[in-house]
């Protein structure tokens, strides 16, 4: 018995340690970059930290910033466990935001108790559709999902621009002739209630965490998740066992997209803007949450629950970066570069972890008792 415990323990330990070490190395590189930029890395770290956790309000801002990352990340894990890769977060966020916006525009007068759930649901559905499309394309027309999702990103941006400049543009923008591509300020009945007065902490944050937990239970505690994972590991075995592979692939990307869409709705109705506005690029609205969510999921070991703290970390990194720029005049793109480095290190480390594990097990006492087991088993 002991040795198995030992093995598990080692696995858990490495599982936690290795990514952290990877992150540490990445941050070291970040510090080096700071020096190269002529800034004091300690001040830099100080600024990062202060910007992310410096005050209750900033802490809240960090949480808010982490929210879409949690949702997208949780979605990524669902897709990944079904072995589909979802690069379409950006388009799904936008789709969710658009549908929830339309909903809010259609029922401005509705009581918050109805309207808030409705816009969130609309976001969920909008994103779900944007995700299910590439899902169905993969399942029924074997179109590679990586590509279709990338293409859909490009398409949705243009679609958003079209809507925000035309059908959905704030009438005031037209009469004033300023024509900023943005919707009118949406009904306050739809805005997500703030949880702590004087901070930006709003209902979206707990919702995101809940969604991540739900994703975990779905994957490992329900037949639906069981089927997704079976399809993910071996479509053939799943099919022979009577599982509808096509439907499950569509479902996986649909769910993944739906969570991203929920993030989209939260971006609109949790923001101070309380409206959608575009600069012509996806990032202008999503702040690249569709990509950063992948990073968060990864750093969380593609496990929905670990995605939460990991997303919080990246949320901190991103909010901190603004402070970094304000205090040290270092471009916030430093944070983006850092994200990239972290992904690279973490993704590579997973293999290092396996190697370390093999090493430890082969050398240490762990396998010897097992041998007796196998031998006496005959």
């Amino acid at each position, binding site marked *: 018995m002991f040795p198995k415990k030992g093995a598990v323990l080692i696995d858990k330990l490495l599982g936690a340690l290795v990514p952290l070490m990877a992150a540490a190395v990445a941050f070291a590189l970040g510090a080096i970059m700071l020096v190269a930029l002529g800034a004091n890395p300690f001040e830099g770290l100080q600024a990062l930290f202060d910007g992310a956790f410096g005050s209750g309000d900033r802490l809240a801002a960090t949480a808010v910033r982490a929210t879409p990352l949690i949702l997208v990340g949780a979605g990524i894990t669902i897709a990944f466990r079904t072995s589909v890769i979802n690069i379409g977060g950006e388009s799904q966020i936008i789709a969710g935001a658009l549908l929830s916006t339309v909903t809010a525009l259609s029922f401005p007068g509705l009581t918050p108790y109805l309207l808030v759930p409705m816009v969130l649901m609309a976001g969920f559905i909008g994103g779900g559709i944007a995700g299910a499309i590439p899902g169905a394309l993969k399942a029924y027309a074997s179109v590679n999902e990586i590509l279709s999702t990338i293409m859909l990103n490009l398409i949705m941006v243009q679609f958003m621009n079209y809507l925000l400049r035309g059908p959905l543009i704030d009438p005031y923008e037209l009469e004033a002739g300023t024509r900023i591509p943005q919707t009118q300020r949406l009904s306050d009945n739809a805005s997500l209630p703030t949880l702590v007065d004087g901070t930006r902490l709003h209902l979206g944050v707990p919702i995101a965490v809940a969604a991540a937990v739900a994703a975990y239970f779905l994957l490992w505690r329900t037949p639906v998740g069981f*089927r997704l994972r079976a399809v993910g590991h071996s479509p*053939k075995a799943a099919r022979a066992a009577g599982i509808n592979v096509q439907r499950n692939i569509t479902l996986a990307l649909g769910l993944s997209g739906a969570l991203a869409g929920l993030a989209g709705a939260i971006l609109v109705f949790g923001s101070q803007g309380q409206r959608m506005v575009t600069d012509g690029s996806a990032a202008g609205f999503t702040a690249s949450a569709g990509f950063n969510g992948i990073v968060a999921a990864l750093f969380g070991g593609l496990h929905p629950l670990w995605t939460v703290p990991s997303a919080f970390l990246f949320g901190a990194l991103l909010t901190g970066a603004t402070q970094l720029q304000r205090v040290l005049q270092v471009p916030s793109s430093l944070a983006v570069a850092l994200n990239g480095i972290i992904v690279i290190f973490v993704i590579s480390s997973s293999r290092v972890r396996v190697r370390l594990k093999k090493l430890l097990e082969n050398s240490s006492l762990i396998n010897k008792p097992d041998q007796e087991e196998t031998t006496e088993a005959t």
Partner: protein
Amino acid sequence: MTSTSNNLLEMRGITKRFPGVLANDQIDFDVRYGEVHTLLGENGAGKSTLVKILFGLYQADEGQFLLRGKPVHIASPAEAIAARIGMIHQHFMLVPTLTVAENVALGLASSRRPFTDLETVSARIREISEEHGLAVDPSVIISHLSVGERQRVEIIKALYREVELLVLDEPTAVLTPNEVDDLFVILRRMADNGQGLIFISHKLHEVMALSDRITVLRNGRVVGATTPAETDRQKLAEMMVGRTVRLTPELPPAQTAESRLVLSNLTINGDAETIAVNNLSLELQAGEILGVAGVSGNGQRELAEAIAGLRPLESGAMTLNDKDVSLASTRDRRNLGLGYIPEERIPDGAVAEFSVSENLILVDHAASTFLDKGMFDEQAIADHSEKMVEDFAIKTPSIKTPTSSLSGGNIQKVILARELAARPTVLLACQPTRGVDIGAAEYIHTRLIEQRALGTATILISEDLDEVLGLSDRIAVMYEGQIVAIVPRQDAERSQIGLLMAGATD
């Protein structure tokens, strides 16, 4: 009695550990010039590991070996090839999208570097085909070749590299009887040319037919060595398993009742839009085992997939327990009482990455007994799995062990357990004992006969003629997509069935 001089290979005290497994334990093994030396043993006994070490795919933890009397260290397949060692793997090592010539040329230095020189290669291939009677066209793409032809390409690859020592790990597992005969002729000739061969198989009559010497492994240790002259199949089986085994099960008379599965005028397309099954009709009774014999590629696979609902019918109809299932999904058919043991246990039969427990509930995972308010009832599932592991004598460290780390035979038992637990009224069993050692095979056979007694109607599709003859109440012979004959057990005769399989019409 082995003196270095006439030994091509000598392995001394080879030990190999894998996490939690002692795969090879102080193994001594040698091969002489011009002999076929067979490695025999149960699944997981350590055969593949030993030869993979020889071929540089794995590194031994202890022990060393001498080649042609000289100590050598082989760190990679490249070094093995350089040492004129060749290996034919159980799962073909061919690139299906490349031509025969390209597959052979792979890894060889080209005379026209940096360009390939396929003309020369093709020419040499033709010569080799001539010498050894291995007919293949160098310019065809592998994916267009039959299993037997691919096997030939593998051998040509070895001959082209002028191997002196050739390892064959279960080369016959996927071959038809005739293909096996052809193969053995070639192997024998190679041995007579002075080359040394290591042969691995679970089929005892093959071992008896081909071997000069036989070494038996159990749990990674050598438990004995013998020669066909000194032994027989029964003795070999007992050496392997370490207890008496019944090689040919006896079958109580069948009490057939109402019909379970009716196939009428089925026409089914193959992968390449070719007709694989042509207007085939068949009726299956409760409490009987119907064996389908046939050379692979005559439509058995497509027929099985169609019955399982994995392949659409072009025309014809199918009723399962009196319900028309011609268009029904696999799930519906299973709900109607169909059990299905696919031909390939991995990846078709079980999810390699799933735990034993997960694979045991792969089909019935949504059954109410495993659920509690829509969520899995872990306890119920664990209890069920433990019971299955015990009932079916599945050798596994725990029910949480990843299935991929079980031996072929034990993976097969997991699948069998899952399918039988569902109490099928119709069981579709494809190659249920391929690559499985006789111990496990015997066990699986007993289980199938049990089911028969319980009234299950079983279709047994197998390329192992002994298996079909031993288990079936009726034997249907398939040839070119049609059933050319259905022979009752009592008047079934090996030679005559063999002829029918080859397309002879009497």
